[in-house]
């Protein structure tokens, strides 16, 4: 006999082996070398998590008790995979598109991200799965007990109930540890567990091999061949079994819904799915696996009935037949098969449930208790991981508790059916989610609650024996129509079928009715449309190309927001860090985070989150997201108005620049015009000089002509010299480098001086009228420069006054702190349109020769008067040409030392230089 201790070692060794395989697979997956991890074979084998200890042990028991009814458990999934695989495909597609992490997540996601609905489904799933986990604990415990009892020397060594209980506890604890180690090592955005899935696939092989080995042994080793076995079957009570149509249909339906709704099935089918195309292969491969699993159930059951003593548990025939026939190796293999079935189910179920519990119950509670909200992601991660670990322990604890409460006595298959019926309550809401756009949150909620309650009342609570017998017999408070196993007076139904009938019927009915009566929210409608039309928006059945497409989408978006170069650099760096060439790193959560943070820099956190979420399909956009986006938009609006102000300012600056530019262009044009004028003024006398000097050079002309031509040459030379003088004078004045030689003087002296200078020119007919008394004004200024201005004005009158008896009236007066001098002649004056240009350079109004100057006189005068702190302007409406000079009335302060005067002069120079 196999020593019990050895069996324990084998079990532990097996677990360690699985652990190693899982660790290896995880490592490979992290390195990205996960091709075989993502093969359709692994996927199909992982689906075998459907076949639990119930299938491994319980099917035989079921066959022994109820004949072929056990087949319904295989029939349902087979029908779904072969006939309804398009439903599965839609489920997988939605799961992928919406980044669904569990069935509760899917339901809540579809129905407007409802937290309460998610919590409800979670509670339902936990409640429904707890008996199932208990079933696994029970089967493992029983299999241990079989070995222990078989190897026990004495009756006293036989296991007692306490031994079973402690074993169950150890098993539960061990499984919890294993699950925690592999299910919650890190948070994967995809909720994928490569290691666990690989281990599950290995276990799938082990259980299949074990069951087939026992089957082959039974047929050829025990009953002596196929034909003998068939004869035994004919003779056995199994052959006499007549199907109960209600149960048959009900159970088939139940197993069909279970394969979709069971949390662990959803986990491997949808969440762990790596490629949609795997489903196509699984759609025939998985039924094949089920067929192989079911092939030897009847022979084992029949042989067991015939071989084993009466009263032995048919659920354990797979183990006890080899043991009874001293096939220890086979027995150990069978044990490992059962052990695999149980552990794989518990591990996957607790991972799936812990995800649901932590995501939909613990975290929402934790978040609502924190006033500040979850802003620190690292914080949340550790909380999530911790809550999952605690959830796993709690789920296994519940399983253990259920095992203890039910006393481990119920038949394996009936426990399983209770579970199936429980999780099946999600089915109407799920189908509505996939296919009915009109389905509403309220409807789903009402339906699930109704189904849950009826299931609990009619099946679950009676099953754990919590309902008093009186209630079961006569209904609560004696209300017969409320008897849990005969609702509304319908009696004679199998309790299980009865429960399924009523719960599903009312569940679906309420769901449809409430959905029709309630109005779905905007987010629900959005999600409803995107669920129902998932194939229209995602790209065909090409499947998932290992994150490449997603990375590319991210890159496309990042380029748009960050600019092509920055985005490419970001992606390339990330790819290099992951050891990949090119620009497309795997969309690991860290990388997606990085991208999101980068984007947040340009579009704001909420928008970035919404955008990234859209691409990696993690979540639908919640109302909070939308509000945050709106907030950001408001902020951006503020920025934008600030920018607008800035832009107005810039526009103003631009306008000023444009103005300055125009000014400069104008100045440049003026400069060109000036140079052109200077050229003209220089070349005109030069032309005469050249021409006449050539005549003179030729010789042979009269003395009179020679004198005349020489005079022209002389005059033109003088004119040239004067022009050059004026130009130099003007350039000095304009450049501000003129040094004023200020001194005291009397105004009438200066005017006398000017009159004398101008009058000396060939006895001008111009008569100058002055009022000497008003000219007794002391001035302190550059008297030479001021006299120059007076001379200019007087000689202008001489040149241009066209009156028969030209007169120039010079009026002088002091007004406040200013001295005014008006120079008014009696000519026709200057036409109004030309008054504005007379102070410009070369603004000579008549021809040059007549004026004998280049037209710089008034320009020079204006410069001088401005340097002296005054102004000169044309005075219109005086009859003739009239100019007014205004000067500041300053007198010499005699007390000033000479250097004080110099300082003042310097000051004035400096002032004029800066002007």
């Amino acid at each position: 006999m196999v020593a019990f201790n050895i069996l324990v070692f084998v079990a532990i060794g097996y677990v360690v082996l699985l652990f190693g395989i899982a660790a290896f697979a995880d490592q490979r997956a992290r390195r990205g070398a996960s091709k075989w991890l993502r093969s359709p074979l692994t996927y199909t084998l992982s689906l075998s998590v459907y076949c639990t200890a119930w299938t491994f042990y319980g099917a035989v028991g079921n066959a022994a008790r109820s004949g072929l009814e056990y087949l319904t458990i295989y029939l349902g999934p087979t029908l779904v995979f072969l006939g309804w695989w398009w439903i599965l495909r839609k489920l997988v597609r939605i799961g992928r598109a919406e980044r669904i992490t569990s069935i509760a997540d899917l339901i809540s996601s579809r129905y407007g991200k409802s937290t309460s609905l998610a919590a409800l489904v979670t509670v339902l799933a936990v409640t429904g799965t707890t008996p199932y986990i208990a079933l696994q604990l029970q089967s493992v415990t029983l299999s241990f007990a079989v070995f222990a009892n078989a190897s026990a020397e004495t009756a006293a060594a036989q296991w007692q109930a306490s031994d079973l209980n402690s074993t169950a506890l150890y098993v539960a604890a061990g499984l919890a540890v294993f699950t925690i180690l592999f299910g919650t090592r890190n948070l994967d955005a995809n909720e994928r567990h490569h290691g666990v899935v690989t281990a599950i696939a290995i276990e799938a092989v082990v259980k299949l091999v074990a069951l087939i080995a026992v089957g082959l042994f039974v047929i050829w080793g025990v009953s002596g061949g196929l034909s003998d076995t068939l004869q035994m079957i004919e003779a056995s009570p199994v052959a006499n079994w007549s199907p109960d149509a209600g149960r048959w249909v009900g159970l088939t339906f139940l197993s069909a819904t279970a394969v979709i709704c069971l949390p662990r099935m959803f986990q491997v089918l949808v969440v762990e799915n790596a490629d949609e195309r795997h489903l196509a292969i699984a759609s025939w491969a998985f039924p094949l696996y089920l067929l192989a699993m079911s092939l030897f159930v009847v022979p084992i059951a029949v042989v067991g009935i015939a071989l084993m003593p009466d009263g032995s548990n048919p659920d354990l025939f797979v183990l006890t037949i080899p043991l009874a026939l001293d096939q220890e190796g086979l027995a150990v293999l069978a044990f490992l098969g059962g052990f695999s079935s149980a552990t794989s189910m518990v591990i996957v179920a607790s991972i799936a449930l812990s995800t649901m519990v932590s995501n939909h119950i613990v975290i929402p509670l934790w978040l609502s208790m924190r006033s500040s909200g979850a802003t620190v992601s690292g914080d949340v991660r550790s909380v999530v991981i911790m809550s999952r670990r605690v959830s796993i322990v709690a789920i296994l604890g519940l399983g253990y508790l259920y095992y203890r409460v039910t006393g481990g006595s119920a038949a394996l298959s009936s426990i399983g059916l209770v579970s199936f019926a429980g999780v099946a309550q999600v089915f109407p809401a799920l189908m509505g989610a996939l296919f009915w756009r009109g389905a509403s949150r309220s409807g789903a909620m009402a339906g699930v609650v109704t189904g849950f309650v009826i299931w609990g009342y009619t099946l679950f609570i009676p099953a754990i024996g919590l309902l008093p017998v009186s209630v079961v017999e006569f209904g609560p408070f004696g209300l017969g129509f409320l008897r849990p196993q005969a609702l509304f007076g319908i009696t004679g139904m199998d309790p299980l079928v009865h429960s399924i009938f009523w719960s599903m019927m009312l569940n679906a009915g309420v769901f449809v009715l409430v959905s029709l009566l309630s109005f779905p929210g905007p987010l629900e409608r959005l999600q409803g449309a995107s669920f129902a039309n998932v194939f229209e928006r995602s790209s065909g059945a090409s499947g998932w190309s290992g994150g490449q497409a997603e990375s590319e989408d991210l890159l496309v978006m990042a380029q748009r927001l960050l600019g092509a170069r920055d985005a490419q650099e970001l992606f390339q760096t990330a790819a290099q860090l992951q050891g990949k060439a090119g620009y497309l790193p795997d969309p690991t959560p860290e990388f997606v985070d990085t991208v999101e943070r980068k984007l947040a820099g340009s579009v704001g956190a909420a928008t970035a989150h919404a955008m990234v979420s859209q691409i990696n399909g993690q979540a639908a956009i919640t109302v909070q997201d939308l509000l945050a986006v709106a907030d950001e938009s408001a902020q951006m609006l503020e920025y934008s108005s600030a920018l607008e102000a800035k832009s107005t300012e810039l526009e103003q600056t631009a306008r000023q620049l444009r103005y300055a530019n125009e000014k400069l262009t104008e100045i440049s044009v003026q400069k060109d015009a000036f140079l052109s004028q200077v050229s003209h003024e220089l070349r005109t006398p030069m032309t005469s000089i050249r021409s006449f000097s050539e005549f003179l050079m030729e010789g042979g002309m009269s003395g009179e002509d020679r004198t005349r031509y020489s005079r022209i040459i002389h005059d033109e030379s003088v004119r040239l010299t004067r022009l050059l003088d004026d130009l130099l004078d003007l350039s000095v004045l304009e450049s501000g480098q003129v040094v004023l030689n200020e001194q005291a003087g009397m105004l009438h002296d200066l005017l006398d001086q000017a009159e004398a200078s101008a009058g000396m020119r060939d006895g001008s007919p111009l008569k100058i009228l002055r009022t000497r008394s008003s000219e007794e004004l002391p001035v302190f200024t550059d008297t030479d420069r001021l006299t120059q201005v007076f001379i200019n004005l007087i000689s202008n009158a001489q040149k241009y006054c066209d009156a028969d008896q030209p007169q120039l009236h010079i009026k002088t007066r002091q007004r406040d702190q200013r001295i005014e001098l008006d120079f008014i002649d009696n000519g026709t004056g200057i036409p109004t349109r030309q008054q504005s240009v007379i102070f410009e350079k070369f603004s000579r109004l008549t021809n040059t020769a007549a004026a004998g100057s280049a037209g710089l006189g008034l320009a020079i005068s204006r410069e001088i008067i401005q340097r002296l702190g005054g102004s000169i302007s044309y005075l219109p409406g005086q009859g003739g040409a009239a100019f007014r000079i205004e000067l500041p009335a300053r007198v010499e302060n005699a007390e000033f030392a000479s250097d004080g005067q110099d300082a003042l002069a310097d000051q004035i120079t400096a002032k004029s230089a800066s002007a």
Partner: protein
Amino acid sequence: MGRSVLLIEDEPNIIEAISFLLERDGWTVRIHSDGPGAVEAVTRTAPDVVILDVMLPGRSGFDILRDLRVSDQTKDLPVLMLTARGQTKDRELARSYGVSKFMTKPFSNDEMVRTVRALADGCEPVLSDDDAQGTEPS
């Protein structure tokens, strides 16, 4: 009767110089000394060559040239344009208006005579290097 020149110029000394020069060469020189009326003077006197200054009181030489080129009577008339401004764009402007010859002041007497003769004969005047290069200060 000898050939005639209409000199449109406002500088008395230059008028005197050119008149003396051309009359000595056998030309009849008529004078018009401002811008307005210049076109009318050309039509009226129907000279063989027009000498036209650019900077005239009242109207620019360019405007006068343009008007001359529009009228059928004067569109082929040889026009020698004189300028003291010496800007390239003046030369180009004159050319675009259809000037026959453009000279920059100061000019040599000999060159002036040869140019006027050549224009009257309807052939391209032989020019000195000085003028061909168009002495332009700016």
